[in-house]
């Protein structure tokens, strides 16, 4: 069975400071990893994904994530946070043996960026 853990319910950061949102996973086979963002009263929006290749993945809005196979982690990062980055962030994983492409989501991490 696949699972995703986001250990922090909320991350607080000042505008201009680096932002990190943590994610660890457990899957069978090679993982497919995703980050989504949700703004209030909206659906989830795709940010970035790791399928294979370079461990550092770049995505939308200046976000990037680093895949670490030995630590089974896929942390989301942004070098300089903006107030507009305040939102709910979800990590998701699909196991390599899942032919249906079902994604398992973490519980989400609320990011609050203060001016």
């Amino acid at each position, binding site marked *: 069975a696949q699972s995703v853990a*986001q250990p922090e319910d909320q991350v607080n950061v000042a505008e201009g400071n680096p932002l990190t949102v943590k994610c660890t996973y457990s899957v069978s086979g090679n993982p*497919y990893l*995703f980050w*989504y963002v949700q703004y209030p*009263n*909206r*659906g*989830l*929006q*795709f940010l970035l*994904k790791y*399928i294979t290749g370079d461990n550092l993945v770049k995505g939308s809005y200046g976000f990037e994530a680093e895949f670490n196979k030995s630590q089974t982690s896929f942390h989301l990062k942004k070098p300089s946070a903006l107030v507009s980055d305040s939102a709910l962030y*979800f990590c998701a994983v*699909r196991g390599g043996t*899942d*032919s*249906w*492409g*079902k*994604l*398992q*989501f*973490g*519980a*989400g991490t609320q990011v609050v960026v203060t001016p």
Partner: protein
Amino acid sequence: DAGITQSPRYKITETGRQVTLMCHQTWSHSYMFWYRQDLGHGLRLIYYSAAADITDKGEVPDGYVVSRSKTENFPLTLESATRSQTSVYFCASSALPTGLSGYTFGSGTRLTVV
């Protein structure tokens, strides 16, 4: 969220009533999914579908029924609504079975069961 629409956006229903949440996508994506979002639980998969007339249960299917007679529609029915089904429901679609394209989500339906 152009291309995948959910209706209604908000719904209040009474315990015991049947209610159907609609999901329509215009991309002809084969794969469609229903999730519910609850505080502390993130998104949990209710049902999914690989094509018309092919559906299967997810993590939390009890009390729900789905159908998929056409590729573009994937309605979710609560047969007899309970208060525990108060939640925000999201429909999603994917073009590829491997999930390489990720999901595209609808805007959600906020359901309150009183």
